[in-house]
């Protein structure tokens, strides 16, 4: 009889204990993976939001711009620089950007804002601002009209919670109002009828138009068609002032950006800040966005640039956000650590019980001629099988949940969604598809098993046959 056959049979001699131990490993792996997938998926979304709406993956900047982000550290961006960068195999486009600060006013309200000037036709290759255009808004009038339609479930109550809220797509509107999938077909036409938001976007040919964040729009009480006054300081201390008609409103997802976001065409921004032909940065659109490729691209591009310019990755530009996520990540790791600690005690409990219960049997096996090494190997296989059973079940059980959570991210509704938004988060918890974090969970369980196996192997090699036979 082969070792693994004996180990497999031994596994089922105490079926209940084996199942309980394997189940404890299953639940640990399952919940750890789900938790980790939510956590990493949320980080991923935050990073993606920042990258797509603001920084891009790589940026060309003046070497001092990171330390002093003002117009004095802008640079003349000539076609020669752009073509040298675009020659890199990983680069698809270079989108110049002029960015500075100003005071924005509409009526009696004033707000400090971040003005971004870019070519709107070219921007989509580096950022994703166009996709953030508001398409639906729950105005008080729309809410009243919808309430009059006798909508089912909690939707009428949730309409009051989200009055004046804006949405960029139907999916978020449906889920935040708690509308059941089965009612979607019936309610969707009503939502379209009452909440569609008449919005516009910039084109490169536009002059004197602006797109602003929904948070800013709310704060200064200005909507599409209203006039926005911008006042600030231009290049080398020149005064900057201009009037712009609000052409569109976007929801920038990250509230700290959304509340201060003003988007002009690049030419308008250059004119406003008296900085013709200049840029504070250029977003470099790339094919491969993983860290290794970004670093390699950065290093290659460094060689074709002069001393005054530098390429920065999104991680370098968003160090604060990364640090915050890292701190949050640590708290998640501690939670998972506690989870595994509990499991480790469970596994050790099983090992201790098993070793105590079968001591006489081990004594008999060694006395009739089974080498201790072979006995240790059989017991190790038993432990490994229990663990792998739990790990395999945990991984298998988590996969559908993770894939579902990735395809249809968990979107909070009602008060919970409101709370998330009030704290400055998008009320969405997407999951991350299986990645190296899956491997880590398996490695952790295997390490716990390894310690348990080491303990049982040591016990076998220290077994006193005569004492064991008396047990």
């Amino acid at each position, binding site marked *: 009889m082969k070792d693994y056959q004996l180990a497999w049979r031994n596994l089922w001699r105490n079926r209940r204990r084996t199942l309980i131990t394997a189940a404890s490993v299953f639940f640990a792996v399952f919940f750890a993976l789900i938790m980790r997938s939510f956590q990493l998926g949320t980080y991923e979304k935050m990073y993606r939001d920042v990258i797509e709406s603001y920084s891009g993956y790589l940026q060309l900047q003046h070497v001092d711009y990171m330390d002093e982000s003002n117009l004095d550290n802008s640079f003349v961006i000539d076609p020669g620089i752009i073509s040298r960068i675009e020659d890199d195999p990983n680069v698809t486009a270079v989108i110049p950007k002029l960015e500075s600060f100003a005071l924005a006013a509409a009526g009696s309200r004033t707000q400090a804002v971040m003005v971004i000037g870019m070519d709107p036709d070219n921007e989509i290759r580096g950022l994703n601002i166009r996709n953030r255009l508001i398409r639906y808004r729950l105005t008080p009038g729309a809410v009243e009209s919808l309430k009059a339609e006798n909508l089912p479930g909690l939707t009428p109550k949730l309409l009051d919670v989200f009055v004046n809220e804006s949405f960029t797509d139907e999916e978020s509107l449906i889920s935040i109002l708690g509308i059941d999938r089965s009612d979607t077909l019936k309610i969707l036409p009503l939502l379209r009828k009452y909440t569609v938001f008449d919005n516009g976007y910039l084109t490169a040919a536009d002059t004197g138009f602006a797109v602003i964040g929904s948070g800013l729009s709310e704060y200064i009480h200005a909507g599409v068609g209203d006039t926005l006054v911008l006042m600030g300081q231009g290049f080398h201390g020149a005064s900057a002032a201009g009037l712009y008609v609000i052409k569109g409103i976007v929801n920038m997802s990250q509230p700290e950006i959304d509340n201060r976001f003003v988007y002009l065409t690049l030419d308008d921004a250059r004119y406003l800040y008296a900085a013709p032909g200049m840029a504070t940065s250029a977003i470099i659109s790339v094919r491969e966005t993983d860290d290794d490729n970004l670093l390699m691209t950065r290093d290659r591009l460094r060689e074709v640039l002069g001393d005054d310019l530098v390429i920065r990755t999104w991680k370098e530009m968003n160090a604060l956000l990364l640090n915050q996520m890292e701190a949050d990540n640590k708290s998640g790791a501690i939670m998972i650590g506690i989870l595994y600690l509990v499991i480790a005690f469970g596994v050790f409990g099983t090992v201790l019980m098993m070793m105590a219960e079968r001591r006489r049997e081990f004594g008999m096996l*060694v006395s009739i001629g089974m080498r201790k090494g072979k006995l240790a190997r059989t017991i190790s296989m038993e432990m490994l099988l229990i663990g792998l059973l739990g790990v395999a079940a945990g991984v298998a059980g988590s996969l559908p949940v993770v894939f579902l959570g990735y395809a249809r991210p968990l979107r909070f509704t009602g008060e919970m969604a409101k709370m998330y938004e009030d704290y400055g988060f998008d009320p969405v918890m997407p999951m991350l598809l299986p990645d190296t974090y899956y491997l880590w969970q398996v490695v952790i369980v295997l390490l716990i098993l390894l310690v348990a196996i080491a303990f049982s192997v040591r016990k076998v090699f220290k077994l006193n046959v005569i004492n064991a036979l008396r047990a």
Partner: protein
Amino acid sequence: MKVVEINDVFRTYHDTEVEVKAVNGVTLSFEKGDFAVIVGPSGSGKTTLLNLIGGLDQPTGGEIIVAGHRLSELRPSELIDFRMEHVGFVFQSYNLIPVLTAEENVGFILSLQKWPKEKRKARTQEMLSAVGLSDRHKSRPSQLSGGQQQRVAVARALAARPEFILADEPTANLDSKSAETLLDIMVKLNKDEKMTFIFSTHDIRVMKRARRVITLEDGRVVSDEKVNHR
């Protein structure tokens, strides 16, 4: 032909401050085909002597030679191999492997010795047949009575053709009918296959069947008598 030689063997324990001489200067030998019982009151050293002969324990003095091997010269791993090849054990509480069937239990020691599958199967069937359990070869220990389990244990002990069988109180947990059946089988195997049996027992039924009775008291041999059964 001598199978076991025990020369002036001592086994002293220092469990507490008191020194206990479990085996105290025993000199004995067992011939091929012996059917011997070691008797004596509890604590007289019967089991200790059996453990020493079987290489489960090492003497603190003297020498044991089994099948030409000086046990004191063998390393622990060699002792395990020695037991596998030369000694068959029958324990008081059967000690079968609960997850294996009767035939797997018997064949287990043969698989440890890496017998080829076909040969192993034939030998297993032969041994189960010898103990009258060929019809229960697929039964697990929990499906067998105590007497049947002990017969499987005997078959297992004999399967690898050891030099001798050490049986520690093999009938202690059996009812009288099962004990008699088991003893009948052992006597037959002893007679037919010249298998050497060394028992430690309190059981009068075993003593009645023995051809040699060794009495121990306080770790010493006080008598060693041959018995003729007519």
